[in-house]
């Protein structure tokens, strides 16, 4: 067999690359002077923080140099999310602070939307402008016609503001564009959503099954750390992915599945585990509901049946099912995180949940543990007014199991429709670049044009800021206090974020912004503390700590007060489902008119000459928000499109060449993307890292670098159960002739 060997220096600036570059060697001795910078930095003082570069929120220490400038960030060793080790993005968080393209002043739109015509404004002006518009919208349409989109700590304060005004419409793209189907599926099965960080006992697992989940490329810090521990302890890893991911490279079994067929494989695994009687019998008998229905349901879904669909050898399907059963209950069929793929995602995640239930991994060591979240008293404030209308009442029959406001739903309901008597008039967007977050950009733009008010709060000029009426520049997480992090884990913990430096430029924390707006809108009583630090100190004193103590330790761990981390042997467990049991047969789904047990349906295949567009993460970037971070851009400054050599040969493509991608609807990538010819990708799909191809020119380092996958996702496969936006049903082909085009490289 021919061997193709690829040697890639991942970090963009290898010494070799620099030698060939512009830096060159200075050979004149006269240019070499004394008093150069020390090779390391004398540090003064450290301040506790928790990271905001992604949602994992690892706690760390921020160190300053002798001039008071932020120099480095190191993980807090007490923190259960990171165990003293930040990921590259957390370590590179310093770049968020130093980025010279940061937003510097409040901005108010002066001309047409999209034209980037803004004037600098004072904070007073900006707040007055927003408050005035909110008053008008509230009077004319009701306060519930204002929605918040949030992804980040600042969202909490704008959420308080909106609730105080009478709007329940707080949407997070982390739901319907990401983990929503998983939460609904696990809720339906075990009576509990998984939340973040997920309660996976990976460090003690004996078998980890990853289905399209590319741990190691998605740097969910604690999970990557625990996967490494599991490798050390000899755990078996089974990876299902059409792409040879980093995790696949660490796996005993890599199942190079045909894209969009995962559910067939999951059902075949369930079939093997039931027909070979490999399931945890006492567990299934004691804790589950509907086993006999399930047995009947999957009886024909054999590995041979799945072979024709998935292209995975039946022997391998059986062997891997037995591996899982051998490890049971210390086995995790990983629920994944970004799971909005094909529109039947809740059902696919149901199959994942069912498989875990059959293997007895829920509530067991090496499987799923029971989390505990620290209960922190909220500052006292009056009850929120009851909203007159909600998104739910406007869409009574849609997405019945959605238990949160859908970001895409708000977007859809902003476009006037004769079937609705209300539409959204104002959006507040905090820390999420909606243009790169919501699929179908044309739809998002259409909605934006309908708005009376669009406020964007961010640290960086993003695509979405270009469409705003008012831009409020937020200081970075390194320059502000925020609420304490209380997230769920093995033990209850709190973590403090305190400012390590004064806000650079004319930037402010979100807490201040929301409170100033509350003042102007007559709802200041919902913000009883004038300063965040006073609120924190008040909260901390209620639980036997203080701001002073937390500044010294950063993270405080408490003993568990609730049940044991895992089920006791024979423990009687009440699950929060209608039957009180783990529902293999879902009464909730059935009641809402959906299949109570998952069924495989074939998804559309790429037409001839097109390839399924798959996308994912790189460990050094978070969404589109880090693409301009100087430290992280240094590691990866553009994405590439991965192409199998067979496909490359057909199209005459070679590594390093730039091409355009165009999708099934004729949507062409805004910028050309570099080809990476690699055996690591199947011939029926291409792959690219999400978050590149920025169209915002103010992002000087990342403008035009690589291509945006979101840009090519015009077809959205909506999950009827909860409204998730499946994004993996788009197909692309190549345009190789770039005559007359400038390539930014």
């Amino acid at each position, binding site marked *: 067999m021919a061997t193709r060997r690829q040697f890639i220096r991942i970090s963009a*600036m290898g010494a070799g690359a620099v030698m060939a570059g512009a830096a060159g060697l200075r050979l004149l001795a006269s240019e070499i002077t004394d008093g150069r910078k020390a090779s390391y930095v004398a540090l003064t003082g450290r301040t506790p923080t928790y990271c905001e570069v992604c949602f994992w929120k690892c706690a760390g220490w921020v160190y300053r140099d002798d001039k008071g400038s932020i120099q480095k960030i190191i993980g807090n060793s007490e923190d259960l999310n990171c165990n003293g080790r930040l990921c590259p993005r957390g370590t590179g968080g310093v770049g968020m602070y130093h980025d010279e393209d940061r937003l510097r002043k409040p901005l108010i739109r002066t001309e047409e939307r999209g034209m980037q015509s803004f004037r600098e404004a004072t904070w007073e002006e900006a707040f007055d402008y927003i408050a005035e518009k909110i008053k008008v919208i509230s009077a004319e349409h009701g306060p519930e016609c204002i929605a918040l989109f949030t992804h980040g700590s600042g969202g909490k304060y704008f959420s308080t503001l909106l609730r105080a005004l009478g709007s329940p419409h707080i949407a997070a793209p982390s739901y319907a564009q990401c983990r929503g189907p998983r939460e609904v599926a696990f809720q339906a099965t075990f009576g509990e959503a998984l939340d973040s960080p997920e309660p996976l006992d990976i460090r003690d697992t004996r078998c980890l099954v990853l289905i399209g989940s590319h741990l190691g490329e998605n740097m969910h810090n604690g999970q990557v*750390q625990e996967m490494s521990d599991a490798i050390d302890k000899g755990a078996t890893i089974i990876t299902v992915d059409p792409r040879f991911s980093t995790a696949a490279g660490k796996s005993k079994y890599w199942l190079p599945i045909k894209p969009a067929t995962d559910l067939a494989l999951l059902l075949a695994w369930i079939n093997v585990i039931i027909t070979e009687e490999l399931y945890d019998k006492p567990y299934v008998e004691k804790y589950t509901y509907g086993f006999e229905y399930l047995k009947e349901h999957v009886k024909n879904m054999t590995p041979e049946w799945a072979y024709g669909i998935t292209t995975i050898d039946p022997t391998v399907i059986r062997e891997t099912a037995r591996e899982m059963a051998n490890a049971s209950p210390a086995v995790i069929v990983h629920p994944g995180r970004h799971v909005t793929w094909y529109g039947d995602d809740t059902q696919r995640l149901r199959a994942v949940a069912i498989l875990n239930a059959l293997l007895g991994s829920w509530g067991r060591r090496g499987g799923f543990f029971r989390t505990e979240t620290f209960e922190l008293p909220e500052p006292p404030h009056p009850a929120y007014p009851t909203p007159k209308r909600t998104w739910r009442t406007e869409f009574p029959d849609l997405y019945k199991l959605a238990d949160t406001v859908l970001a895409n739903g708000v977007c859809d309901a902003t476009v006037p429709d004769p079937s609705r008597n209300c539409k959204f008039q104002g959006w507040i967007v905090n820390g999420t670049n909606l243009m790169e977050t919501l699929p179908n950009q044309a739809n998002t733009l259409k909605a934006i044009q309908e708005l009376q008010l669009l406020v964007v709060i961010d640290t960086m000029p993003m695509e979405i800021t270009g469409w705003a009426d008012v831009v409020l520049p937020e200081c970075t997480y390194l320059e502000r206090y925020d609420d304490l992090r209380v997230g769920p884990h093995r033990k209850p913990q709190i973590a403090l974020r305190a400012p390590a430096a004064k806000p650079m430029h004319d930037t402010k924390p979100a807490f201040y912004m929301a409170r100033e707006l509350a003042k102007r809108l007559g709802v200041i009583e919902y913000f009883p503390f004038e300063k965040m630090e006073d609120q924190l100190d008040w909260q901390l004193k209620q639980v036997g700590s203080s701001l002073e103590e937390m500044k010294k330790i950063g993270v405080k761990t408490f003993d568990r007060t609730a049940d044991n981390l895992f089920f006791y042997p024979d423990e009687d467990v009440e699950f929060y489902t209608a039957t009180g049991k783990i529902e293999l047969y879902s009464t909730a789904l059935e009641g809402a008119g959906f299949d109570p047990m998952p069924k495989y349906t074939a998804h559309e295949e790429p037409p001839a000459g097109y390839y399924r567009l798959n996308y994912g993460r790189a460990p050094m970037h978070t969404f589109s928000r880090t693409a301009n971070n100087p*430290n992280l851009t240094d590691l990866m400054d553009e994405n590439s499109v991965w192409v199998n050599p067979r496909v490359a040969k057909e199209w005459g493509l070679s590594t390093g060449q730039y091409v355009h991608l165009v999708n099934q609807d004729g949507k062409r990538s805004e910028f050309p993307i570099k080809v990476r010819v690699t055996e690591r990708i199947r011939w029926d799909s291409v792959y690219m890292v999400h978050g590149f191809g920025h169209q915002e020119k103010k992002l000087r380092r990342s403008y035009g670098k690589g291509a945006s996958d979101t840009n090519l996702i015009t077809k959205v496969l909506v999950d009827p159960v909860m409204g998730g936006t499946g994004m993996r049903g788009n197909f692309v082909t190549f345009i190789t002739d770039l005559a007359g085009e400038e390539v930014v490289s």
Partner: protein
Amino acid sequence: MRYAMAVDTKKCVGCSDCVVACQTENNVPIGYCRDWVVEVMDGTYPQLEIELRSERCNHCENAPCVRCCPTGASHIVDGGIVLVKPNKCIGCGACIASCPYDARYPHPEGYVDKCTFCVHRVSQGMKPACVSVCPTKCMYFGDLDDPNSDVSMVLKKRKYKTLIPEAGTKPHLYFLI
């Protein structure tokens, strides 16, 4: 005392955290690096293997960079760590050309720079920044003369290799395979 490092290629995920941590610890200018990550892929779909490894100066016992340095700027200190004295360095680049591992780069301030094994941390009993930060704990550091050091222990337990052994440089950077 002979300081050495071992990198576990079975655990490294290539995240490049070691590279950023080194930059912020050692004030390495943006656009340069003292350590980096290499991915080597072998095979054809679907029979594939990947090796990921974090690389840096090998702190060779028989260091070509030290031998060829005309000013004595490149030198070996206690513990076998290869260092460059910026004030003695004339930036001639002979060391860069002689290094089989491509581990040195011309610092924009006019001297040649490279990994120091974080000697400023190691001398205070800490581990190098890259070792301390690694989320997968894939790096082991310590004294080869101490049989109980992390690096000695792991080299006893595991199969390993060095890079370009035929260059005869006696490197102190090991890769667990």
